[in-house]
C-alpha cells in the first residue's frame, strides 16, 4: 500500500471521530438556533415597532459586516476581559449561531416580502389573525422561496465550522492539524480533510434537492390568467 493511502486510512478514524463529536453537532445546533434567531430577527425587522426593528437591523449589520473569525475571537478570547468566560464549544455555538442568524434573517425577510400582498389579504378575509396568516399562509410559501438560499447557508456553515479550530475546538480540521504536527504530512492530511468536507457538503446538496422537490410539489405561483 502506498504511504499516502496508508496514512489516510490510519488518520480516517481520528478525523471522523472529531467530525462526529464536534463538527456535526456544532453545525446542527448552530444552524437550528441560527434559523430560529434569523426568523425572529426577520419578523422583528418586518413587523415590530421602529426602535426594536432598528435594533434588529443593527445586529444584522454588525454580524454580516464583520469577519466570522473575528467574531469568534471576540467571544472566546475577548469577552473574558469583560468577565464573561465561555468554554470553547459553547463559544463556537454562540458565534456561529449569531452569524447564521444574521445571514438567514435577510434570506427569510426577502422570502416573506416576496409573497404577494394578496395572500395576506386572502388570509385576513377568512378571519385569520396576523399570526395565523403568517404561520398558515405566508411562512409555508416563504419557506419554499428561502430553501435554496438557506441550504446554501447550511452548506457554507459546515465548511465554516473549521474556523472553530482557531478557538481551540478540536473539530475535524484541528484533528487534521494535530496529525500533521506529528507526521509532517500537510498535503496528504489536508487533502483528506478537504475530501471529508466535500463528502459532507455533497450529501447536504443532495438533501437540498430532495427538500426543494418536496416543497415545490404544488407548482408555480398563482397569478391572474386573464
Amino acid at each position, binding site marked *: 500500500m502506498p504511504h499516502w493511502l496508508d496514512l489516510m486510512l490510519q488518520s480516517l478514524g481520528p478525523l471522523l471521530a472529531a467530525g462526529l463529536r464536534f463538527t456535526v453537532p456544532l453545525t446542527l445546533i448552530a444552524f437550528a438556533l441560527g434559523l430560529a434567531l434569523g426568523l425572529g430577527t426577520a419578523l422583528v425587522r418586518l413587523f415590530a415597532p421602529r426602535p426594536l426593528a432598528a435594533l434588529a437591523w443593527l445586529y444584522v449589520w454588525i454580524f454580516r459586516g464583520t469577519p466570522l473569525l473575528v467574531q469568534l475571537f471576540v467571544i472566546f*478570547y475577548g469577552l*473574558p476581559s469583560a468577565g464573561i*468566560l465561555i*468554554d*470553547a464549544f459553547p463559544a463556537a455555538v454562540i458565534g456561529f449561531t449569531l452569524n447564521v442568524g444574521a445571514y438567514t434573517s435577510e434570506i427569510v425577510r426577502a422570502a416573506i416580502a416576496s409573497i404577494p400582498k394578496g395572500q395576506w389579504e386572502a388570509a385576513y378575509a377568512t378571519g385569520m389573525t396576523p399570526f395565523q396568516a403568517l404561520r398558515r399562509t405566508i411562512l409555508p410559501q416563504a419557506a419554499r422561496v428561502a430553501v435554496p438560499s438557506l441550504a446554501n447557508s447550511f452548506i457554507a456553515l459546515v465548511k465554516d465550522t473549521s474556523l472553530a*479550530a*482557531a478557538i*481551540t475546538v*478540536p473539530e475535524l480540521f*484541528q484533528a487534521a*492539524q*494535530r496529525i*500533521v*504536527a*506529528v507526521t509532517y504530512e500537510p498535503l496528504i492530511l489536508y487533502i483528506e480533510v478537504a475530501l471529508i468536507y466535500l463528502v459532507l457538503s455533497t450529501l447536504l446538496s443532495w438533501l437540498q434537492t430532495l427538500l426543494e422537490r418536496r416543497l415545490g410539489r404544488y407548482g408555480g405561483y398563482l397569478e391572474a390568467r386573464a
Partner: protein
Amino acid sequence: MRIFSAGRVAALVVAALLGAAPASPFAAPAKADDLDAIRAAKTLRIGTEGTYAPFTFHDASGQLVGFDVEIGRKVAEQLGVAPQFLEGKWDGLIAGLDGKRYDVVINQVGITKERQAKFDFSEPYIRARAVLITRADRSDITSFADLKGRKAAQSLSSNFARLAEQSGAELVGTDGFDQSVQLVLTGRADATVNDSLSFLDFHKQKPSAPVKIAAEQADADASGIIMRKNNPALKAAIDKALEAIKADGSYAAIAQKYFGADVSK
C-alpha cells in the same frame, strides 16, 4: 532562541546539507581576518530582522530597538567601531553572511552543530529553556510530570506541544503564546509550555497577570553572535567584548530592561 519558523527549519536544513558537503576544492588561500576590514571601515555591519520583539524590533517612534540590537551596539562600542544595522528577512540573514552583506548576525541565532559546521559563533550571549507556566495560584503542578491528564494550551505545530504531549498532557490548540497564556489565565487550560524568554517578555509587559513558572527544564538552548568561519581575531574580539559588557554591568542593564531577569545562564 527561535526554533519554529518554517524559514528557520529550511535554513537549518540548508546549513546541514552544506555542512555535509566535502570541503570546497576552491578554498581561498590564507586571507586577512574580518576584524581588520571592520576596523578599517570603522563599522560593524550587523544583520538583524527588526521584526522580532523583544529582541529586534521598531518601537512606537520607529527606532530600531531590542535586546539583540542593544547587545550589538555595546559590542560595536567595545570594538571601537560604529554599529550599522542592516535589516532583512530571517530566511536570508545567515545567507547574507556568505554574501558578505553583513559581518555578523545578531538575531537569536541558536547555536547548533549544523550551523557550527559552516559558521563560527561567539560565546552564548543569551540562553532560553522550556518552562512550564501555570496560574500563580496553582500549587498542584510543580513538574512536567504533573501535566499528565491536564490540559496544556499549545501552538499545535511547536516543539513545546510535543514536549507537553510527551508529559501526558491533553493539548488545547492555539495560534501562539499570547492565546495560550490567555487560556491559562482564564482557567480554560491548566498550563502551557514555552520558552523562558517569551514568558519573561510577557511578564515584563503584564506584570500583574497572575501566572508563574511552575517548572523548568534543565537543558538550555543558547544563542550566539554568528560570523563567517575562520576569523579567529574577530571571534576573540567579540567574546572579549561580551565579557566586558557583562563585567561592567551594561549587559545586566539591558537584560533587566527587556526581561526583568538575567538571561545569560
